[in-house]
């Protein structure tokens, strides 16, 4: 549950959040990316990457047909190979939630809906709340909201905080992932501050990016957010999940995120309940690498279904 914070103190509290050293964070992330993950541990990591994947489509051109195809792919990524698990969730726009829900029923795959005037968040609060309400009513198990970066950057932390609290209420039982859109926040200090703010306001997950802004997820940004989670858990005891999203296209990248996760938050976070990978084109590369680990040879792309 969200902790109520005194209105007048939130600003100074935010400014008191411990600083991040840019050089140090980037160096640490780069050194972790050099870990060499081979054989059985690679297979395990790739399997986990699928189980933690939010298979995503967020296009203006999304149609019921596209959603049908994506849901089928999410439930059974590699037809004919039951050893490949389903993804964690299908992530789509609110208007597609009902369709996705219908296809996924009984499969264990969840429906995640972006909301709150995604991706910019530049709309009226009443509309954002209504949008979340409708998405949940249509069957969304998880809501991916965006924070108001304009308010955050202008120093109006209270507005950002209140919005998250309100959206969390509108979510009801649905899980709330809060997108910071780190590519617009400018510094690691802001990323850390926004992470703490979102967690204090009740986020179940904090998420890097919408995928619509460059840079999207990066390893150092993820490290900084995970460190914020680690500190938040230490102080409050409430575990918060983490979701990097945007630009994660290869197995190698996905494994690097898992390594940083493992060495920052530890084995307890290596589960879909606490970690998600937001990606639209990562899945087939993971399947291809699994096949390569098993058979020793790369298979043609034609052996992997597109959606």
């Amino acid at each position, binding site marked *: 549950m969200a902790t109520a914070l005194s209105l007048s103190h939130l600003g100074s509290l935010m400014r008191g959040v*411990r*600083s*991040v*050293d840019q*050089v*140090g*964070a980037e*160096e*640490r992330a780069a050194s972790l990316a*050099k*870990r*060499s*993950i*081979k*054989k*059985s*541990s*690679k*297979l*395990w*990591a790739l*399997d*986990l990457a699928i189980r933690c994947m939010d298979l995503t489509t967020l296009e203006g051109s999304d149609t019921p047909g596209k959603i049908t195809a994506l849901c089928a792919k999410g439930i059974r990524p590699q037809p004919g*190979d*039951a*050893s490949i*698990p389903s993804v964690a969730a299908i992530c789509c726009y609110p208007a597609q939630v009902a369709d996705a829900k219908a296809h996924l029923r009984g499969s264990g795959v969840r429906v995640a809906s972006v909301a709150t005037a995604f991706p910019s968040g530049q709309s009226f609060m009443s509309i954002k709340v209504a949008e979340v309400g409708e998405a949940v009513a249509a069957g969304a198990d998880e809501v991916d909201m965006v924070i108001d970066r304009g308010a955050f950057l202008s120093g109006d932390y209270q507005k950002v905080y209140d919005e998250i609290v309100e959206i969390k209420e509108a979510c009801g039982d649905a899980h709330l992932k809060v997108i910071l859109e780190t590519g617009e926040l400018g510094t690691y200090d802001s990323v850390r501050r926004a992470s703490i703010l979102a967690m204090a306001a009740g986020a179940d997950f904090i998420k890097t990016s919408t995928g619509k802004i460059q840079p999207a997820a990066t390893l150092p940004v993820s490290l900084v957010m995970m*460190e914020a989670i680690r500190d938040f858990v*230490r102080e409050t005891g409430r575990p918060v999940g983490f979701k990097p999203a945007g630009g994660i296209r290869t197995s190698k990248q996905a494994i690097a995120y*898992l390594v940083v996760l*493992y*060495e920052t938050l530890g*084995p307890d976070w*290596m589960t879909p309940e606490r970690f998600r990978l937001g990606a639209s084109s990562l899945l087939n590369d993971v399947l291809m690498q699994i096949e390569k680990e098993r058979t020793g040879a790369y298979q043609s792309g034609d052996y992997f279904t597109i959606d």
Partner: protein
Amino acid sequence: MAIAKRHRTELATQKFEYAPAPESTDFVKIEPHYGLFIGGKMTAAHSKKRFATINPATEAKLSEVVEADEVDVDRAVKAADRAFDSWSRLDPSRRARYLFRISRILQERARELAVVETMDGGKPIKESRDVDVPLSAAHFFYYAGWADKLEWAFPNRKPRPIGVAGQVIPWNFPLLMLAWKIAPALAAGNTVVLKPAETTPLSAMLFADICQQAELPPGVVNIVTGAGKTGSLVVSHPAVQKVAFTGSTEVGKLIQRSLAGSGKRLTLELGGKAANIVFEDAPMDAAIEGIVNGIYFNQGHVCCAGSRLLVQESIAEPLLEKLKLRLGTLRLGDPLDKNTDIGAINSKAQLDKITGLVESGVEEGAELFQPECKLPERGFWFPPTLFTNVSQSYRIAREEIFGPVLSVLTFRTPAEAVEKANNTPYGLSAGVWTDKGSRILWMAERMRAGVVWANTFNRFDPTSPFGGYKESGYGREGGLHGLLPYVELN
């Protein structure tokens, strides 16, 4: 389907264990025994004494080298002396060309050098691969650039080379220390006789091969192997004009005493007991990494290691809690595994020294912390160790341990931090962690240490001078300052 299901449950219960990822060694050729590199080729030694060099991670014998005697050292120095005339008169741009060539070959043979360095010394392959070898190549590259610009390095002076340089290097960074010694000496037009450490002679033997590959004129670089006795023969040889030593303060003092009145020039880079000072406003996660890098890098076999952690009392508790958690994630094991963070202790003797000092710490009343950590059965190993409740007077807070052992002390004010940090006979390096730029400068002015790192630690660059205050030695290596010990200025 059944198989698939079993496979699934196996995966679901499995933990994230990094499978071994060892660097292969099959492309490295180590000779069963080596001679001495004198006058441009490997020669048979006069001395009949040989000793084995082993892999400290497995205790397996890698090769045998000669314990060079007086005759051998004399031959080496004479070869260097003969080569001096033509080398020092060689067109400087041609000298530069040889150094550039060596730098390039070091890069080309980087993988081989990294593997040999790790096998012979026990350091993790990720360090020899990412630090030792690239920095060695960078050092030659940097000094190659100075070779034909010495008159610009010392305006209005006439820099001239000195003669034969006798150089004795330690076992913690065998190739890098070789580069630090040989590159500036050669760039300035000197010739050298180098003695690598007795436990780590192999990368120097490989370097001898590189000198031949680079077609360096015979006698410009000579390498004699051996222990302390051979080292003292090198530095005391009458034809040696300049002595450079990196190693313990104890031996440094002996050398200084023995050279008194000889007219030989001397530079010493000796021990350290550096303070790594963390203020309450420091970026804490970066500081944790800096502390870990400061003392556990190369198993703490670093003369500038941040072996004393001075932490402001107001943040001591959360910082130590985080640091202990972080120590638990350090991976100790096979140095050739690319995922290893902490390798083997360089030798049995060093392991005994570390063990003795750690025991003294416990006896004196400090609180010991070691993460759960399985040590391999063979080889020399010591787990990452942290001492709290350390008082300034304990041996572990005063003596150089040269192992993965950190002593934690606290302070209340910046003035107290300065006082405690400087309260040591050593003065090689210091680290300052704070978000406040003005405090960094304030501290740096007051640290009696050759290097002060701000919000980082153990960072090296060939353009930056390195060296000590007080009993950490004198003379600088690296940068423009690194040329000074190798030139006569008129």
